C-alpha cells in the first residue's frame, strides 16, 4: 500500500543518519498510485493526531499530487478541537492515497528504499547497520 500515515512515521535507519535530518523520506519514481476509498473512522484519526508531523505530511502529500492540507497545522495536541472537515481531509490524505510501486529516499544519505507491490524494503546494507 504505502499510505501516508505510515510514511509520516518513517525515517532512515542507517547508522549514518539521525532524526530530523533523515525525515521525511522523499517519494521517487512513483509509477503506481491508487486512491482507494476507505471507511471513515473519526475517532481513529483524532487519536493519531499527536503523532503527526504536519509539515512533512503536507510535503509528502504534494509529492504524490495532493495539496488538500492547509499550510497552518491545527492544534494537534488538542484532538477534540480540530474541526471535522480537517479530520475528513486527513482521513483522505493519510489512508486513501496508496503507493504501490516506486521508492522513498533519505534526504540525508540518499539511501533508496524500493516499494514493490505496496511493501517497502527498508533493509539496510551491511555498512549501514547499527551495532
Amino acid at each position, binding site marked *: 500500500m504505502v499510505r501516508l500515515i505510515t510514511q509520516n512515521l518513517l525515517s532512515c535507519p542507517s547508522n549514518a543518519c539521525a532524526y*530530523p535530518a533523515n525525515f521525511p523520506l522523499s517519494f521517487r519514481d512513483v509509477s503506481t498510485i491508487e486512491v482507494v476509498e476507505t471507511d471513515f473512522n473519526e475517532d481513529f484519526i483524532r487519536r493519531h493526531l499527536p503523532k503527526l508531523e504536519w509539515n512533512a505530511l503536507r510535503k509528502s502529500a504534494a509529492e504524490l499530487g495532493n495539496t488538500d492540507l492547509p499550510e497552518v497545522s491545527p492544534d494537534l495536541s488538542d484532538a477534540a478541537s480540530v474541526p471535522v472537515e480537517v479530520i475528513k481531509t486527513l482521513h483522505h490524505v493519510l489512508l486513501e492515497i496508496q503507493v504501490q510501486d516506486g521508492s522513498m529516499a533519505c534526504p540525508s544519505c540518499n539511501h533508496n528504499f524500493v516499494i514493490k507491490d505496496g511493501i517497502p524494503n527498508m*533493509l539496510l*546494507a551491511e555498512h549501514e547497520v547499527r551495532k
Partner: protein
Amino acid sequence: MKFLLLCAQPMGLEEFRQPELDSIATLFNFHITYQDPKQDIKRPYLIVDLESEREARLLGSRSIAIKTVWEYWYDASTYEDLHQYLKTVPELWEKYAQSPSTTWKFDVGAYGQVISMKEKVDVINSFAYMNFLGDIRMKGPDVEVGVFEEYFQGQSKLEKESRSVHEMRRVWMGRKICDSQRHLVDVFDLKKRAYIGNTSMEAEVSLLMANQALADKGKLVYDPFAGTGSMLLTSSAFGAYTFGSDIDGRQMRGKTKSISHSAEQYGVTGKIIDCASFDMTQHPFRTGEIFDAIITDPPYGVRAGAKRLGRKETRRKVYEPTLIPGRESEGFAHELPDYVPPSFAWEMTDVIDSLVTYALYLLKPGGRLVFFLPTDNAEYADVDVPVVEGLQLISNSCQDFGKWSRRLITMVKVSPASGVLNDLDRGIKRLDIGTRNDAAAEGEEAASKLPGHANFGRKFMQGFV
C-alpha cells in the same frame, strides 16, 4: 448477578480461558469476579458475577474461549436437589411459563458422557411442574432453558442397561443470554484462508491473542514478526487498524497470493494499513508511543530462524559501499535490485529481550504487549519471563506440547515509562550506549542459569536432550 458460562475446553488451551475473560472485562471497562477463585480449568461450567445482563452480553460479544452465556439458576449434585430448589423460586421461570404467547425450548446437554434423545426427553418431562403454556419453538424461542449434566472424567464406574457409564458429578441450569464468538474459529480456519504459510498462527490462538491485545476500533496495532499476517487479520477483524513488519518481505508479499487476499476474504482490507520489510533492531520509526498494542509470535528458530542484519563478530565486515568484481558498471552492490543484505542467527534470549524494550518504546502508555515465549519444559522457571521496569505482567498462559511449551505473555505499559529507555536507541540496545556496568552485569548473567527459551531453536532440533 450470577451467570453460568459454558466453556469450550479446547485441548491444551485451558489456561487461556480466564485471561481472555479478564481482558474482555478490561476492554469494556466492567468488573468480573469468579465464584470459585481457584477455578478448575478442566471443568467447562463456570459461574461468574457480573453487574447485569449487559455485561454478560459484552462478554459473549468477544469471547472465543466460551460457547454460551446463561443467567445462572442453580447447580446441584442430583436432579432431586435441583427440582426441590426450583420449586422454591418460581419467580425464575413463572413469568415465562405462564405467558401463553411466550415461545420456549429446553436445551439438554452433557459433558463427559453421551446422553440419548430418550434420556433428554425424560429430563425435559421432569420439569413438567413448570407447566409452560406457550408453544415450543426450536429456532429462536423467546426463552431457552438449559440443563447440563457434568460427568466425572476417567474410568467409567457404573453399569446402566449393560453400558459402562460415568457417575454424574453435577447438574447445571440456567436461562440463555447469548452465544459467544467461538464460530470465528471456523471462519478464520487456516484450511479455508486465501493465503497461509508454514508459520501461520492457528485461528483459535490468533483470536485469543487479539482479545489479549484489546484490539478494537479506533486503535492501531502492530506485529513486528508479521509473516503471513495472522495476527493482523484477527486484530483487524475486531476493528483495529494494523501494521506489520518482518525482516523477510517474501512472506508478506506472497507469490500468487498475499496477505491482501486473506484481508479481502475477511472483509478487513481497509484496516490493514501497511506492511514493511525491516529488521526490528534496525527499525525506521522516528518516534515512540505510536501503537495501542503489539501482538506477535516471534520466530523460535525451528520452522523459521530468527535473524538480524549484519554479520557475527568473527566474520569479515564491510564498512563502506562496495563494488562487485565483474559487475562494477552496475553500481554499488547494495543498490542492485538483487542485493540481499547479510544476516546472522539471532539467539532467542536476545530476540525476547529486544522485543520487550522495543515494545516499551513503541507502545502508548496503557498499551499491551502480547507475545509467545517458547520454552524447554525441563528448564523453564517463572523468572524466565523478562522483567522490564515500565511493563507490568498481566498473564502467562501455557500451551504444552510435551517436551516444550509456548507461553502467551501479556504485559501492559504502565505510565510513566522508566529510565530504561534512556540507555537505548529508540528501544534497541546498542553497543556504544548504556552504562559502564553493562560488561560486569553480562559476566554475572553468563554464570547464572540460562532461561528456558535460551538457544531454543538448537535445543528443539536436538529433541531437548
